[in-house]
C-alpha cells in the first residue's frame, strides 16, 4: 500500500512513535563499571548513585577534605589507637552531612525513594574512599613529590583499608538487605583492623588494658547497640 510521503497512515499513533524515538535518542548507555556494580549490588539505582557520587561536586569536596584530614590525623598523628578508632566516625559524619540534608539539594526527594537513603549513603562512602584511594595511590607512586611519603602513609594506612571496610559494609548490606547490618559489619571490621595492627606491633596488652581506649570502646559499643535497637524498633506510623 502506498502512502503519500507527507501524511502518516491513519492508524499510526505519531505520539507513541515519537516517544519510542525519543527514548532511544535520550537513552544513556551505562558504562561497564556501572553495569558490573548494578549486578553486584542487585540494584541499578544504587549503582547509579555510586557512580554519580563524585559528580556532585560540592558534597564531594566537603567529604573528601574531611576524609583526608581524618586520615592524616589517624596515620600521621600521635599514633594513639583512639584517633584511628574515632576517625571513621568523623569521616562517616562528614559524608552523611555532605550527601545528606546539609548540602545535597535533592535530599528530601531521595528520602522518598524505594532504594533506601542509608544504602545510598553506604554507596557514597565507598565512592568517596575508593576514588581518594586511587588518587592517593597515584600520588604515592610519584616518588619525586616531596610529600609522597605522607601520601603513601595516608593511602595505605587509611584510604585503602577504609575502602575495603566500606566495600564490606555495602556487601553485607546488599546480602542482608539491611544498611544497619552493613554499618555494624563495617564498624566491626575497622575495630578488628586497628586492634590487629596493635597486636602486630606487640601492643595487644595495651590495646586491652590502656584506659585511654575505654572511652572509644564504649562509644563503639554504644553505637552498635543503637544500630541494633534502631534496626529492631517498633515501626512508627501505627496507632499507639
Amino acid at each position, binding site marked *: 500500500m502506498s502512502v503519500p510521503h507527507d501524511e502518516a497512515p491513519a492508524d499510526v499513533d505519531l505520539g507513541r512513535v515519537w516517544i519510542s524515538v525519543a527514548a532511544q535518542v*535520550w*537513552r544513556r548507555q551505562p558504562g561497564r563499571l556501572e553495569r558490573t556494580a*548494578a549486578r553486584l549490588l542487585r540494584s541499578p539505582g544504587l549503582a547509579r548513585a555510586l557512580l554519580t557520587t563524585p559528580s556532585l561536586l560540592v558534597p564531594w569536596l566537603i567529604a573528601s577534605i574531611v576524609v583526608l584530614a581524618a586520615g592524616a590525623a589517624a596515620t600521621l598523628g600521635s599514633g594513639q589507637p583512639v584517633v584511628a578508632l574515632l576517625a571513621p566516625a568523623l569521616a562517616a559524619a562528614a559524608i552523611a552531612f555532605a550527601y545528606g540534608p546539609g548540602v*545535597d539539594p535533592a535530599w528530601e526527594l531521595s528520602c522518598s525513594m*524505594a*532504594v533506601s537513603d542509608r544504602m545510598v549513603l553506604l554507596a557514597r562512602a565507598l565512592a568517596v574512599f575508593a576514588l581518594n584511594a586511587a588518587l592517593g595511590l597515584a600520588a604515592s607512586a610519584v616518588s619525586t613529590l616531596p610529600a609522597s611519603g605522607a601520601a603513601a602513609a595516608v593511602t595505605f594506612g587509611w584510604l585503602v583499608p577504609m575502602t575495603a571496610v566500606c566495600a564490606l559494609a555495602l556487601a553485607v548490606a546488599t546480602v542482608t538487605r539491611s544498611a544497619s547490618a552493613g554499618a555494624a559489619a563495617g564498624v566491626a571490621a575497622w575495630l578488628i583492623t586497628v586492634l590487629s595492627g596493635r597486636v602486630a606491633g606487640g601492643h595487644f596488652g595495651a590495646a586491652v588494658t590502656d584506659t585511654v581506649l575505654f572511652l572509644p570502646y564504649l562509644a563503639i559499643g554504644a553505637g552498635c547497640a543503637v544500630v541494633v535497637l534502631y534496626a529492631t524498633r517498633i*515501626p*512508627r506510623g501505627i496507632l499507639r
Partner: protein
Amino acid sequence: MNVEISDLTRRFGRHQAVDGVNLQAGPGVFGLLGPNGAGKTTLLRMMATVIPPTTGRLQLLGRDPGAYGTRREVRRRLGYLPQSLGYYPGFTVAEFVEYFALLKEMPPSRVPGAVATAIERVDLGGRARARLRTLSGGMLRRVGIAQAIVNEPELLLLDEPTAGLDPEQRVHFRALLRDLGQQATVVVSTHLVEDVGAACSQVALMDQGKIVFQGTPAELTARGTEHGTGDAPLERGYTAVLAAARS
C-alpha cells in the same frame, strides 16, 4: 482507598504541626488548601514517607508504610514533588529523571520509555539534553513534576506544583493533573484556590494543623455565599470557612 489517615499527628518539639487529621482519598485529584503554616507540607511529607507521624494511623495504597518492607513497596508506586526541590546542576533533564526512575526501582528496560514519556508530558522534549543549570525556574519545576510522574505512580503527591509556572504552563499542568487523576490519587497542596477550582474533584482546607473543611470545590464555594471575602467565589468560600474555624 489509596490514602487512609486517622488521628494523625506530627509534633516538632513543642510545635504541633499536624493535629489529629482524618482523611480518605481514592482516585481523583484531591486539593489540600490552607494558609502558610497550616500543616499542609508536613502532612504531605508524612504521606511521602519522608517523615514518620508522631502518632496515628497512616495507610497508603492499602499498606502501612511504618515497616521497611511495605514502605519500600509503597515508595515504588509513589510520586512526590517537594515544595523546595533541589537539583543537581550538572545533570541533564533526561539524566535527572532517569536517576530517580532507577531509585524508584523501575525495571531498567522500562526506564528509557518512561523517561521520554514523562519529559514529553511536561512539555520539555526540546530541552531533554540541556543541563539543569541552564533552565529557568518554571522549567526546573516541570523537571520536578517529570521525575514525580515517571513511574506512573498510583499515589502522586505535589507540594505547590504550580509555583513558578507561567499562566500558559499552569493551564497545561491542570489538564495534566486531571488526566493523571483518571487513574491515580493525586494530592495537590497549594494556597492558590484557582488551581483547586480548575483541577480538583475533592478539597480539604487545613488551618493550624487541623482539617477544618472537606468536600467538593462546589461545596466550599457555597460556604462563601454570605460571609466570605475575596474576588472569586471559591476564595470567598475559603475565607468564610477559615473565619468560622478561627472564631
